[in-house]
């Protein structure tokens, strides 16, 4: 489990992280979102012991990263696709890390196969594309077969097939009970991958919840059509929902399809349509972060 508690980090006059708190439970994929300069990478680096916090706690499995018994085998991290010596072959890069991090040497070939790089394992990393480097970074994170994964923009440079693979892969990791914290600016991808999102802006927490909760809380609307629209409108208004529209079709704000359907059923009202209106995570994100800017 990852716990961030009242975390603060200042660089000169810039407050990069400002009292940030959130948790990531095992078996969950949590998206870590925020505009450029929001403090995402700083937070992840503090979690991994690379950057020193001014105050607050950032722990993984109840301890600071450096205090973990075998951190490389307990926490896997992808921070950037540039931490490679260009003259070193991919397989050797992984061998170096496995040796330093006490990971079994046999894992090197296993993770190369997992990320689809077995054919390029003996190629020098300097000749790799950005997508291949990203896969190699992911292979590095998986070397120790860790229970916690911290990934900073792992979809960068991946082609659509690679992005789909990553999405399925992250879901499979969570299904195995691992905690996955993944930062991304590809919001549409995050939306399809994560269980929850943590949205930060200017180092502060803006929102934390499931994607559905955030969408509903911000602008959840349901379109409902009924030949008894007038009666339904009264019932919904009585239940506290804001209803607009005319004729047979109504728009119900702040409600789920289930809530509307249950109210209609309880009153024996006939429905011709019951459609949740999709709100993109991007809209929620922009609303939340722009509100912060105001």
């Amino acid at each position, binding site marked *: 489990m990852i716990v961030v508690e009242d975390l603060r980090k200042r660089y000169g006059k810039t407050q990069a992280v400002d009292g940030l708190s959130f948790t990531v439970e095992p078996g969950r994929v949590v998206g870590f979102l925020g505009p450029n300069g929001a403090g995402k*990478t700083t937070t992840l*680096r503090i979690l991994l012991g*690379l950057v*020193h916090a001014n105050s607050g706690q950032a722990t993984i499995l109840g301890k600071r990263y450096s205090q973990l018994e075998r951190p490389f085998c307990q926490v896997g991290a992808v*921070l950037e696709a540039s931490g490679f010596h260009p003259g070193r072959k991919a397989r050797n*890069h992984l061998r*170096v*890390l496995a040796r330093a991090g006490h990971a079994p040497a046999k894992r090197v070939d296993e993770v190369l196969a997992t990320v689809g790089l077995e054919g390029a394992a003996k190629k020098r990393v300097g000749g790799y594309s950005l997508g291949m480097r990203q896969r190699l970074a992911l292979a590095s994170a998986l070397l120790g077969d860790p229970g916690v994964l911290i990934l900073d923009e792992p979809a960068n440079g991946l082609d659509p097939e690679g992005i789909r693979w990553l999405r399925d892969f992250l879901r499979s990791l969570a299904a195995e009970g691992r905690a996955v914290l993944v930062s991304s600016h590809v919001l549409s991808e995050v939306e399809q991958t994560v269980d929850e999102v943590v949205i930060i802006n200017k180092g502060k927490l803006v929102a934390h919840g499931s994607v559905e909760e955030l969408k509903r809380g911000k602008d959840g609307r349901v379109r409902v059509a009924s030949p008894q629209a007038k009666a339904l409108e009264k019932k919904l208004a009585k239940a506290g929902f804001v209803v607009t529209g005319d004729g047979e079709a109504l728009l119900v704000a702040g409600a789920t399809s289930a809530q509307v359907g249950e109210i209609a059923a309880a009153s024996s009202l006939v429905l011709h349509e019951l459609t949740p209106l999709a709100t993109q995570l991007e809209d929620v994100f922009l609303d939340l972060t722009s509100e912060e800017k105001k």
Partner: protein
Amino acid sequence: MIAALSSEWLKLRTTRTLFWLLVALSALMTLIVVAGVIGSQKHNISSAKDQLDLLGIGSLGIFIALIMGLIVSTGEFRHGTITPTLLATPSRSSIVIAKALAGMFFAVALVGLAEGLVALELAIALPAKGVDFAIHAGPAAGFIGRILIAAALWGALGSGIGIVLRNQIGAVVASFAWLFIAEGLIIAILHSNAINSNAGRFFPFQATGAILTNGSRNSADLLSTGSGIAALGGWMALFTIAAVVLLSRRDVS
């Protein structure tokens, strides 16, 4: 610590840096040995002492040892590999010490190979010139041993300097500027102002001279061989401690 050291060993073996340093050093040694033997009169290279001086050409490898130590450390910052290195080994003092030891081992290996090459070339070139190979095993072993001690200390010192300065080109330029310009300049200033004319003997290049020079040939300006080892070891320890302190305090972002 053993895992970190083993990883450092593998790092250097899995790039071409060490190979090219060895090629450069071997080419340089060969050129100097051949030029030294061909360009000298027979009577100038016939005594054991003269030939021991030719064997000392291998001590130039100490500069390569310094460069290698610098590369061991600055390469991490240049290529951004310091991040995965710290993730695999969060103990920053372990990383500094592992790099210092790796710098030592590789410097000894590199300079040892170069010195072996020089001895082999002399064993071929001197008879070809019509001069008997007069170097005896005892003095040669002692001389090569002192060169290897100096190389080991310079390898580790380079590693410490590299972590302190981080920028690869900056570290190489600063180190050689110190060796070839600053150290001599400061010693000259110390002498001219009579501040402390003995202090210069403890500087790295002067201490190296003390290590490499036979005790019988030590000039009054140099420390004894043992004190030279202690002085150069002191510089190595100073930069290793500074590297531990700075790497532990710095954010890696």
